[in-house]
């Protein structure tokens, strides 16, 4: 198959229709979280961000950001950004297992039957800079600088208008499948920057260019946050260790393409129906000659 047709098929396989089980579940959880936040913080502004809002949503990582911003002079959730972050975390922890991230709060189930299951929702608390309700400050709990100025609309617009959304989706898939640790919004900015002059190239060339740049640059490339050009220091997010991890993953990928072809990067794309899939799984299980016997230590 032609490489770009193959990549188009990969993209197609990553589409999540609005009536998919995954998005249906996401909508249910979103409604629950939103109701909880509105109950606890009636004055908060609730909005949606993340890949669903920006566009580069993929089946392998379909996260929704629920933005919970407070007015610049509203202190009901706390005086400082750290207080706000803590208050929102405490409110969510009544119903969810909350995993703290740098600025977001990741929600997992705390019910016994579904313990640990990820809801694919990050709640991002913050406070608007002024009454225009555009720019916002968010808390950073594991960074030197506690405060990050951001602007959701600018981020969404920057990604949507980039002209390289297919490349962003495929590179996000590459990153997610390799469990690479860079924050997605910084990775989006990096990809947009690297492809700035190459938007007319075909998809495979765009991807190869990004991986080659990741390999070739010995030091992390600097990226500018459109929400605060020159203001936000993203060098901590894109530090030497993170860069090296991505650089070696990119090198491996380019070698794999050379050695095995593109299918080694994104896997074979063969569509099967749900029934066929179940049959094949049953056949795969039946073909195991000496299956291992699962157990559980927590009885």
């Amino acid at each position, binding site marked *: 198959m032609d490489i770009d047709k193959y990549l188009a098929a990969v993209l197609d396989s990553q589409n999540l229709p609005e009536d998919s089980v995954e998005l249906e579940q996401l909508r249910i959880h979103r409604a629950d979280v939103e109701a909880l936040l509105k109950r606890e913080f009636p004055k908060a502004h609730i909005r949606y961000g993340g890949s669903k809002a920006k566009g580069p949503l993929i089946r392998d990582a379909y996260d929704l950001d629920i933005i919970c911003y407070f007015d610049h002079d509203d202190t009901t959730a706390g005086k400082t950004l750290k207080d706000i972050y803590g208050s929102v975390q405490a409110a969510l922890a009544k119903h969810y297992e909350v995993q703290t991230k740098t600025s977001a709060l990741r929600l997992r189930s705390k019910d016994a039957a*579904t313990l640990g299951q990820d809801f694919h929702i990050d709640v991002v608390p913050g406070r608007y800079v002024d009454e225009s309700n555009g720019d916002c400050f968010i808390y950073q709990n594991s960074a030197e600088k506690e405060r990050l100025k951001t602007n959701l609309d600018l981020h969404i617009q920057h990604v949507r208008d980039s002209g390289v959304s297919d490349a962003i989706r495929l590179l996000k898939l590459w990153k997610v499948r390799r*469990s690479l640790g860079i924050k997605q919004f910084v990775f989006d900015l990096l990809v947009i920057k690297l492809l700035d002059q190459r938007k007319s190239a075909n998809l495979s060339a765009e991807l190869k260019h990004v991986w080659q740049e990741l390999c070739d640059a010995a030091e992390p490339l600097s990226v500018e946050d459109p929400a605060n050009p020159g203001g936000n220091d993203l060098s901590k997010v894109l530090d030497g260790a993170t860069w090296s991890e991505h650089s070696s993953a990119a090198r491996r990928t380019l070698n794999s393409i050379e050695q095995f072809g593109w299918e080694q990067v994104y*896997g074979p794309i063969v569509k099967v129906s749900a029934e066929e899939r179940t049959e094949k799984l049953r056949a795969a299980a039946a073909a195991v000659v000496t299956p291992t016997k699962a157990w559980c230590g927590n009885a």
Partner: protein
Amino acid sequence: MKKLWHRANAALLASLDEDLRGPYPDLGVVAENECVYLRGSFPIICDGVVLDRYQIEVRIPRNFPHALPTLREIGGRIPWNIDRHVNTNGEACPLVPEEWLLEPRRESILCFLNGPVRDFFVAQSLVEVGQPWPFPWRPHGTDGLYQAYGELLGTHDRAVIRKYLECLSKDAVKGHWECPCGSGNKLRHCHLNDVQVVRAKIPPSVARQALQRLVRQAGQT
């Protein structure tokens, strides 16, 4: 202290990376906090079709291959409950660890991925679509441990299993010891030959781990 396996033999780490590249290109090898981790997407492929994928983390312990790698599904898809063979700390239980440590292929991470890990996730995918767990499984907790050790030792008597493990935990076996079978006879006049045969299969380090696990598990239940 004994040097960590991946420090003692850096080539081993590189060869692991190389071994994974063909069958599991998305699994990256990372050395962190005295351990080696494999992280990334684990595919279930059958007849050239990717039937499913799981985001996994395999922690290869510092004393590998004398201890079992630990497996976690890190995509938040499988609930952490005993019916899905996942501990409440998120650690998966694809098998009783000592069973793998007795395998001749225990030194191969690739065999671990192709065997217990693949079986575990094939079963999880079937359970997700409403099918039963397709393989036999062990009872949970101490019962499962006794069942597994009993099969290895050829007995179902729990007291005998513990005595056998105590005996096998020693670096050397003496003929004047009391036989672990419970007859009251000296080992040399009873099951010494059998014990020697079992020792060839179960080294002292593995027996010690098994015994510790039984004691720990009994304390939890």
